[in-house]
C-alpha cells in the first residue's frame, strides 16, 4: 500500500506564540482509517487543516500524493485540494440550495471557465450525485432545501459532497460533535463503509475516545502539539490515555467523578 500522506517534521506556531504542532511526523497509507485524538487545544484541528493548506505551516513538509503541499499556490493548489475531501462539524452546506446542488459542489473543482462559474454540471455528474444520495439513503431528499434536513442528514450531504470530489483522502473535522448518539453512529458507520468501499484513506478528529477505539484501524494521540501515541487501537493502554488527556480513563467516560464537570466545561 502506497503512502498517500506524509508529515515530515511539521511544526506550526501562531503569531500569538502558541505552538500548535511540534515536529510532527507520520505517514498515512491507502485505505487506512486514522483517528486523531487529544484534548482541546492539542493541535488536532491544525493538523487536519495543514493537510489541505487551510492553515499554512511554519516548518517541515507535508507531502500529499507525492507533492509538497506548502510549495503550491493558485491553480496547482486547487488541483491538489480536489483530491482531498473534507467534512466539518457544522456541515457547512449552502442551506438555501437543494441537497443535490450541495452534493454537486464537490465537482466544481473539476469544472473550468463558464461551466464552473455558472454551475452547469454534466448529466454524468448529476447522475453520480443522485446515485451517491441513494447510497446514503437520501434519495427522497435530493430536491429539498438543505435547510430542511436534520443534523445527521446534513452531515450525510456533507459526506456526499466530499465523496463527489473523487478524493484519495478524506479529512473529517469533528464530524459527530454536533450530533445525537444515534445519528453519530450512522455517520461513523457510513464513513467507514464509504471509505473502505472506495479505498479512500480517512483521517478523523474525534473527541470521543470510545468511537475512536471502535472504528479506527489506527489511532494518533496528540498532546500539546506532539504525537504521544501512534498505533492500532489495541495498543492504546490506560497509561497512554492518561498521557494524552492528562487525566485517567475513568474521568473521560460520562458520569465520572472528580473534576469531570469542569473538564467538560473547558472543552465546550
Amino acid at each position: 500500500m502506497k503512502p498517500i500522506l506524509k508529515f515530515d517534521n511539521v511544526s506550526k506556531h501562531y503569531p500569538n506564540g502558541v505552538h500548535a504542532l511540534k515536529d510532527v511526523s507520520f505517514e498515512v497509507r491507502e485505505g487506512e482509517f486514522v483517528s486523531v485524538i487529544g484534548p482541546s487545544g492539542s493541535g488536532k484541528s491544525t493538523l487536519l487543516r495543514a493537510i489541505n493548506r487551510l492553515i499554512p505551516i511554519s516548518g517541515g513538509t507535508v507531502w500529499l500524493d507525492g507533492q509538497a503541499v506548502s510549495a503550491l499556490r493558485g491553480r496547482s493548489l486547487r488541483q491538489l485540494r480536489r483530491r482531498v475531501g473534507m467534512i466539518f462539524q457544522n456541515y457547512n452546506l449552502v442551506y438555501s440550495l437543494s441537497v443535490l446542488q450541495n452534493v454537486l459542489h464537490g465537482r466544481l473543482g473539476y469544472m473550468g471557465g463558464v461551466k464552473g462559474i455558472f454551475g452547469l454540471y454534466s448529466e454524468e455528474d448529476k447522475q453520480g450525485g443522485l446515485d451517491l444520495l441513494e447510497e446514503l439513503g437520501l434519495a427522497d431528499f435530493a430536491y429539498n432545501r438543505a435547510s430542511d434536513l436534520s443534523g445527521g442528514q446534513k452531515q450525510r450531504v456533507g459526506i456526499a459532497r466530499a465523496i463527489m470530489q473523487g478524493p484519495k483522502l478524506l479529512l473529517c473535522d469533528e464530524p459527530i460533535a454536533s450530533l445525537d448518539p444515534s445519528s453519530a453512529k450512522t455517520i461513523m458507520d457510513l464513513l467507514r463503509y464509504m471509505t473502505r468501499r472506495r479505498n479512500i484513506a480517512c483521517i478523523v478528529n474525534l473527541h470521543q475516545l470510545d468511537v475512536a477505539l471502535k472504528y479506527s484501524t489506527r489511532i494518533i494521540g496528540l498532546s500539546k502539539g506532539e504525537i504521544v501515541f501512534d498505533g492500532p487501537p489495541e495498543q492504546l493502554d490506560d497509561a497512554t490515555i492518561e498521557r494524552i488527556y492528562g487525566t485517567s480513563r475513568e474521568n473521560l467516560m460520562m458520569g465520572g467523578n472528580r473534576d469531570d464537570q469542569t473538564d467538560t466545561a473547558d472543552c465546550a
Partner: protein
Amino acid sequence: MNIDLTQACPVLRNRTEENDREKGRIPVKCRQRNRFIPVFLIGVAVLSVLSLLYLEIDWLKMASRVGDIGVVFWDLAHLDFSNMDLILSSLVETISIAVLSLLYSLILGIVFGMLAARNVFRIPVLSVVTQSFFTFLRAVPTPVWVLLMLVCLGMGPEAGVAGLCVHTTAFFTKSFAQSFESIPDETIEALEVTGASRLSIFMNAVLPAALSQIVAWAGMRLETNFSECAILGMVGAGGIGYVISNSLQGYDYGAAGVAILLVFLVAYCIERGFVRIKKKFS
C-alpha cells in the same frame, strides 16, 4: 476651585456600583459603562442651540402661517381628474425610470459588491479601494447626480436613469458586500477545499445564499427610487415630479393632489408587494 465633574454631573459618574453598595443597595448596571453616550447627548444639545442661534428662526412668523397649511391641504384634497391622461402617462414614465435604474444598479451592484466584499477574493486592497470609491459616490446625494447627468446627457428620462443609477449602485455595492460578508466563512471554506475557484465559489454558494437579502434590498430601493423620481422630475428629469411642481406653481392644487396621491399609492403597493415576495424567498 476644583470641581469634581462626576459629583456635579450624575450622568458622568462611573462608580455607581460602589456608590450603591455604600448606601446598602444592590447595583444592577454593567461595570463598564459606555461613557461616550452622555458626551454625545451633550454635544447634540450644544449643536442644536448653536443652530437655532445661527438660523434666527422667527417662530412667531411661522406660527402665524400655520393656518395656511390647512388651506393648502384642503385645496389639494379637492382632487381634479381632468388631467388624468397626462398624470397617468408621467406616472408610468416615473415607474419605468425607477425600474430601469433598479435593474442596471442590481447588476452593477452585484459585480462591485463582489469586489468590495472582503471574503470573496480575499484581496484587502481591492475591497478597500472599491468601498471607498463608492463611499465617495454615495456621499453626493441623488438630485446632485441627476443635475450633473442633465448637464452631460441633456434633459429627459435618460438623465434620470443615469443619475439614479450612480447613487443606487453605490448603495447596492455597500449593502450587497455586507450581505456577502454575512455568509459564514466556514461555508466558503467548505467549497475552497473542493478546489473550486473563487469566482465559482461566489456564483455557486455566496450569491445563492445572499439572494433573499438582495431581494429585500432591491425592494427597499425600488420604493426609495420611485419616491426620489418624484423629486427628480422637478429638476427636469421627466416623470410625475414635473407634473407636481408644474401644477403647484400654477396653483392647480387639484391636479397636484391627484399626482401626490398616486405617488403615495404606488409606493405603498411596491412596499406591500416586496414584503410578500420576501416572505416567499426566505
